[in-house]
């Protein structure tokens, strides 16, 4: 059961995966990206952010990017999505989409997209 730790996938971890979907980011940038993509509802603090990042690293869902080009003092760790991370994010998104469909069918959620 290799993915047990992220089953179900915690919101913070999912948001981090999403934030890395199209670019490599460092911790603070991930935090800002998550804030942005949740319309300011989720502001990851350092504890949640880095413990989630560590968890995702251990599960091989993201990986650290080697950026030797940067000067030592400015060095920040950058992360990017791995293929299994991308797959997991997609699965989670589909699960949520299913949920939405159900919600809509039950007239809980109105709207015409997704």
């Amino acid at each position, binding site marked *: 059961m290799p993915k047990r*730790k992220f089953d179900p996938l*915690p919101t913070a971890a999912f948001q981090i995966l999403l934030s890395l979907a199209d670019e490599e980011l460092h*911790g*603070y940038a991930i*935090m800002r990206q998550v804030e942005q993509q949740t319309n300011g509802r989720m*502001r*990851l*603090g*350092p*504890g*949640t*952010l*880095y*413990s*989630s*990042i*560590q*968890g995702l690293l*251990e599960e091989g869902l993201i990986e650290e990017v080697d950026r030797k080009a940067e000067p030592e003092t400015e060095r*920040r*760790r950058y992360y990017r999505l791995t293929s299994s991370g991308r797959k997991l994010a997609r699965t989670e998104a589909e699960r949520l989409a299913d949920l939405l469909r159900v919600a809509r069918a039950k007239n809980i959620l109105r709207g015409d997209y997704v």
Partner: protein
Amino acid sequence: MSERAFTWLVRLYPAAFRRKYEQDTLQLYRDRMRDERGLVRRVRLYRDLMVDAVLGAPQAWRNSYAEASADTLAGDVSGLPGFHLLDQEPLRAGAVAIGFVFSISALVGFGLVMRLPAPVCAARAGATLSPIEAVMDRLNRAIAAPRNDAGERAAVDGGSAQAQLTTNDAARADKSAERPLSASEKGQVVQGVAENLTAHYFDRQKALATMERLRELEKQGEYAGIVDGRMLAERLTADVRNATGDPHVSVAYSRNAIPNAGPARPTASALIQYRTVMLKQNCSLEKMEILPGNVGYLKFNSFPDMEVCGASFHKALAQVGGANAVIFDLRDNTGGFPETVAEVAAPLFDRTVAWYNPKQTQSATTLTPAAGSKLANKPVYILTSSRTFSGAEQFTYNLKMLKRATVIGETTGGGGHVGVFHRVDEHFGIGVPETKIINPYGGPDWDGVGVEPDVKVKAVDALNEAEMRAAKQILR
């Protein structure tokens, strides 16, 4: 929130996490502090940080940080035992404090145990040492603390006093102590034991038969394998007791040299010293009280020579003379003169009774009651402990056998009475009953086993128990 407070919050997280991400978390903190200014945003940031510190911790603790420990475990390939540092976390202040507290309490506990007066050891020593050895042991101890010295000497061996060992003797003995016994030495010891028996034992026929038996055993090589003095003494004691059928004969070995003083009477100076010590200690009379309910309580720690202490003892006995009941506290009484034992017991009777004295020089003794005593019909309680010894045991045993006292406390020390002590050589001696001892009560006495109390309680609780019983008895 200051950066310092923030680093404190981060301590909620595992060490491995902090090692890897401490700089990152600080960086994030600084970034947000830089970017989120203004009162509202700052307050929101502080709340975020605190909530985050708590909510993020479970995930942080779930992570394995396998990477961090992988390299420390990597060296385990050769199959050889190795020392791996699994966690490089420095000792926390709390751990150091707990360690400190534990060490100090262990040290204090050890110290307390060492300071205890070891009554248990004394009791055990009394049980495993042969009677003579117990006596010798006490004599040797008396060198260190020459208390009651002359009294004990006179008392334990019925008048044939052993001169006190000098420190020179002790030093000499220590040098020769560990030397194994040679065959000729053993032969001399066996011969000496046999000669002393024939010379002093009250039944000459038995003594001669025993001598034959010992020579036979020696010829058969029964003693050939013994190289240790103590073992030889034990073996000879068993053989002599077997041959005579008398449990009061005893061969003893002493590591310290037994002085060749002969059966000399205590010297004048020893008597003067004894008198001084006794008077200074109020003749070992520790306490005289009239307890509630007019219960007389007497605690004395020896049965001293009446020539010296007669006045003090008679005064103390007179003080409890009008009591409704008497408690004799012998819990620290190590014995003394058989004559004193009889004299203390005399006021408790109004008729002549059979009196057992294993140290008597003439057989069959009775106890004559003290004239005009009001105590003859009053309840008597005797408090005992495992330290209660020798003459104090005689007092306890006799009154118990005569059903004159209720014995409360612990089984007594079991001090032996082995007749008169004779020196065989520098390290061996033999205790020989020179008169036939008749126990008028029948059955075995306390030699080696102690006197069983009627009411078994811990020595410390004995007085309470006695007071309670005395109160009930008086009301009846």
